[in-house]
């Protein structure tokens, strides 16, 4: 009777020893801090000024991006977010391009009403930024649907890269490139900074385009094998899919000097089965959700959670 009892006691002791005394390693959760990509300590305020946006007509990339980034920064950054009118940056850039040859000032030319920025503090404040007459807008073009059915072919549904749009709208990367000079216009950004007490300025480009693709994709299906077990089996299936691509560039500008401090590019895309109807705006938010952590990582310390093993 006592034999089994003793054996159980010994086994318990061994287990106890294994659990308490003889353990040589301890798994521990850690949070590794990742330093921000840029130093924002000189700033207490941040202005998400506006974006040069293009691509799909279904989403106002400028307005939506400004709204989204401001709301994210309000909750996830220590910087005070300035609520200001969203700059119609594409129009301003267009005006600067037009003004540049006549003033001979090259890329530093500012729009008509901001050309006096060199005047400094004595200047009347005036309008925050130029409100130029909008460039003549062509009627919204029909979104050209590229042919489907070409295996493994992915094509933007908007005019192809390299092919400039004739309606003055921004349809692709090449169209966007023409506007990039505005980010180097230090006088313009300095003026914007002065009007908002020298904050950190966030601007950039957002290109949100439709895409269609067709080809073979890998999928998994669950089958019952001859022994009655459920197994997951990969298979390839030909599919036509459509979706959206977002290509964004975030530019961080020092509001005190108007110079670019840092810029970062991102590319994300999402594809759905051709039959699925997904609103462009919801896809836009889905894609922006993926970009936001990287965007915030430029400004504030991010913590990566993980586990490590401590040893005795």
């Amino acid at each position, binding site marked *: 009777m006592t034999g089994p009892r003793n054996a159980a006691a010994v086994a318990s002791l061994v287990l106890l020893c294994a659990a308490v005394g003889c353990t*040589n*390693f*301890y798994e*521990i959760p*850690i*949070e*590794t*801090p*990742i*330093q921000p*990509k840029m130093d924002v300590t000189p700033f207490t305020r941040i202005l998400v000024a506006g974006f040069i946006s293009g691509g799909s007509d279904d989403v106002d990339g400028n307005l939506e991006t400004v709204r989204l980034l401001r709301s994210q920064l309000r909750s996830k950054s220590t910087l005070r977010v300035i609520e200001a009118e969203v700059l119609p940056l594409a129009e301003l850039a267009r005006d600067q391009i037009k003004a540049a040859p006549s003033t001979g000032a090259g890329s530093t030319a500012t729009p008509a009403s901001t050309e006096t920025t060199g005047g400094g503090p004595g200047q009347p404040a005036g309008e925050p930024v130029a409100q130029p007459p909008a460039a003549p807008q062509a009627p919204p073009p029909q979104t050209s649907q590229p042919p489907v059915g070409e295996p493994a072919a992915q094509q933007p549904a908007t005019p192809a890269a390299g092919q400039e749009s004739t309606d003055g709208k921004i349809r692709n990367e090449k169209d966007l490139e023409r506007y990039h000079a505005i980010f180097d216009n230090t006088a313009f950004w300095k003026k914007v900074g002065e009007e908002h007490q020298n904050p950190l300025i966030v601007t950039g480009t957002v290109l949100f385009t439709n895409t269609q693709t067709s080809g073979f994709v890998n999928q998994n299906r669950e089958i019952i094998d001859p022994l009655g077990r459920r197994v997951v089996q990969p298979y390839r299936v030909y599919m036509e899919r459509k979706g959206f691509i977002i290509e964004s560039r975030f530019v961080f500008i020092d509001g005190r000097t108007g110079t670019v401090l*840092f*810029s*970062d*590019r991102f590319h994300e895309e999402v594809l759905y089965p051709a039959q699925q109807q997904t609103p462009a705006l919801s896809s836009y938010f889905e894609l922006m959700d993926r970009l936001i952590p990287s965007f915030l*990582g430029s400004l504030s310390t991010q913590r*990566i959670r*993980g586990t*490590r*093993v*401590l*040893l*005795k």
Partner: protein
Amino acid sequence: MFFRAVTLGLMLVLPAAAAAAADRGAAKQQVEFGIKVAQTGLWREAQYRWERAVDLDPTYAEAWNNLAIAYEHAGKFDEARNAYETAIKLDPKNTMIRQNYDLFKEINDRTQKRRGGR
């Protein structure tokens, strides 16, 4: 003559071995205390203890591993890498140290890429 030489040798070696054992014992105490405080979230204290441990016994691979983790937690990536590499050099077959190091390297590489900027 032979016995005298052996005795002399032992007199020289034994105190050194005893001192080394004492150092390891003291270092082990520091390591264990460091683990306890790290588990309660007192990482600075833990780091201090493990620094003491590697001072007492620089050949203590486990102490270097723990110190590396504390540095990693503090965002001191260069120090963490040095500590992990020392731990691996001292105990190359320890898979747990290597696993910690691999996880650290993954994050460190990502950080380096981010710092590269554009």
